[in-house]
């Protein structure tokens, strides 16, 4: 049941890695110290020394892969051309350079069997907006309900946090089975109140709805926890003052709660938007029949890259997704002045 020698190996493996990392960083810092403090006497020596280890790690794990993917996106690397791309496919075993063809294909060709980019994009936007809306409203609602002296508060908290805690692989399998037309709990429960049964897994619109319901179930705890935190940092004095002034609950919510939650909500909504936009597990699992109307950009990317091994195309596709999110972020940040609140 438990192999002690294996456990020992695990400990030593991780332990050695940590030791090596510490040593490497120490050496790095030593070099930086010599260069920037002794030799260059730079004013910014300390921040440079502090940031460099992280910077190197980030360069290796984010910048290098991004550049690698950028490189591949100009080639036709796929299952029949399964070779190292070299530089833009030009220096590979045989020339697999295709220029911007992959990017053109992303927008013009069907990305999946029948669905094109713009349809997928629209589906992804609808998916993201609906989910984030429910995550935020339900999260705020639940947080408001929990943010008070209440009997059984800990029990409620424990239960409400379960969707986040339980491994998605298990819960999504269960959700998928519960959507079964005849035998799933969803239709059976709805039947008790005289609704349904609905074809959650086989019809496009119902499947999309099913995905949203499951993702809302999955994502509300996270938002609830964040809002709870924000609420707890709002001093009671504000509410008391408002009550004295005769404000009702709705008014105090609008004038006190919402504005004071803003610095917390804005980054949370942004984070929630990315996570939902790039959420691959839920659509993958719930879309059992692989309805293309239920695919979002990332699931199509996954299929292209791994199921069909269209590496060049997938790389171009991934960059397009990344560019879209980047543009969105820039606009969102400007509009909400989010960077100021969080960063300055």
């Amino acid at each position, binding site marked *: 049941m*438990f192999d002690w020698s294996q456990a020992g190996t*695990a*400990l030593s*493996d*991780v332990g050695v*890695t*940590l030791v090596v*990392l510490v040593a490497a960083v120490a050496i790095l810092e030593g070099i930086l110290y010599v260069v920037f403090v002794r030799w260059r006497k730079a004013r910014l020596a*300390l*921040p440079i020394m*502090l*940031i460099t*280890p*992280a910077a190197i*790690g*980030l360069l*290796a*794990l*984010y910048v*290098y*892969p991004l550049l*690698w*993917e950028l490189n591949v996106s100009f080639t036709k690397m796929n299952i029949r051309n399964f070779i190292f791309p070299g530089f833009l496919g030009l220096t590979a075993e045989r020339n697999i350079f295709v220029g911007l063809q992959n990017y053109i294909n992303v927008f013009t060709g069907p990305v999946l069997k029948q669905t094109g980019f713009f349809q997928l994009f629209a589906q992804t936007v609808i998916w993201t907006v609906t989910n984030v809306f429910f995550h935020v409203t339900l999260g705020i609602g639940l947080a408001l309900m929990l943010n*008070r*002296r*209440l009997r059984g508060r*800990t029990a409620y908290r*424990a*239960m409400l*946090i*379960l*969707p986040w*805690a339980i*491994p998605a*692989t*298990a*819960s999504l*399998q269960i959700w998928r089975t519960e959507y079964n037309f005849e*035998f799933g*709990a969803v239709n*059976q429960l709805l039947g008790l109140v005289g609704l349904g049964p609905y074809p959650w897994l086989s019809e496009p619109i119902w499947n999309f709805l099913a995905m949203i319901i499951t993702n809302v*179930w999955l994502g509300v705890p996270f938002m609830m926890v964040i809002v*709870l935190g*924000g609420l*707890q*940092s709002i001093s009671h004095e504000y509410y008391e003052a408002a009550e004295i002034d005769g404000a009702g609950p709705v008014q105090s919510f609008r004038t006190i709660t919402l504005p004071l939650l803003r*610095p917390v909500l804005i*980054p949370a909504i942004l*984070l929630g938007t990315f996570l939902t936009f790039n959420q691959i597990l839920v659509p993958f699992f719930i879309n059992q029949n692989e309805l293309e109307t239920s695919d979002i950009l*990332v699931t199509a990317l*996954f299929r292209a*890259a*791994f199921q069909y091994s269209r590496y060049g195309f997938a790389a171009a596709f*991934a960059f397009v997704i*990344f560019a879209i*999110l*980047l543009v969105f*972020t820039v606009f969102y940040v400007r509009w909400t002045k989010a960077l100021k609140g*969080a*960063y300055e």
Partner: protein
Amino acid sequence: MSAPVPTATSAASKRSLLRRLTVAPARGQDAPVKRALIHLGLLFASLIAVFPVIRVFGTALRPGNNLLDPNFSIIPQGATLDAFGQVVFESGLAQWLFNSLVITLGTAAVGLVMSATSAYAFSRFKFRGRGLSLTFLFATQLIPGIMLLVPIYLLAVQLDLVSTYRGLVIAYSVTSIPFSIWILKGYYDTVPIDLEEAALIDGCSQLQAFWKILLPLSLPALAIVFLFNFLAAWGEYFTASVLIGSKEELLTWTLGVARFQGQFQTQWNELSAASIIVSLPVVILFVYTSRYLVSGLTLGGVKG
């Protein structure tokens, strides 16, 4: 029986009953009706949150290998703890959990150290490229993770970091950095710089000021970051599968539990039992530390 004549007193008592039900009895408490409604709402939400988990639990208890249960019983017919027993004693779950624990603790520690120091630099120093770097950190969270898997794997093979925990520890630590810097910098920004400046005047070096003054003050935020990184690494599947997925002895619980799913047959009862078991530590951790979680997250965002 004649109808009771509404007298002044019964009207008053009716009104006072209504008042008792709808008006707050004291400051900071809610009226009974409101309280009841809130309980109802929370109960409803909790049931929805918990229901799939109960079904998972039911599947774990069900004898045989049946995912479906046309009946609605929470405790299925012929419930047995066999699946739990098998998962704990015969599968490698204990081993996998230990592996995950070791990796996760290691990466959370490394990630914390790297982020805490870098966040300090971002918070206390002004330099060219600071805004750009912060935006870059933001941007890393936009990248669809699956896109990075193949090049990271190729890099790891070249550096001989596969089929051991080395590559995984590095990968987890580094990918936790952007979010951690974000939170920590936000928190540092809320701590007035006066204390450190006073320390500098008294002869401390910058690092000493950081170590002796800022760090102790930011313990809550450090705890949060540690917790978040722990949770992120704990339940991660794809990177682990790519970097250590080729060696049975190294499995983390995410990879191990996925083994219960075969090509055609899935061990539903064992998969469910394992899922329940691996959720327990996380739930306990959450409940225990959620007050910190909550305030720590805010502190990162709220500007004084």
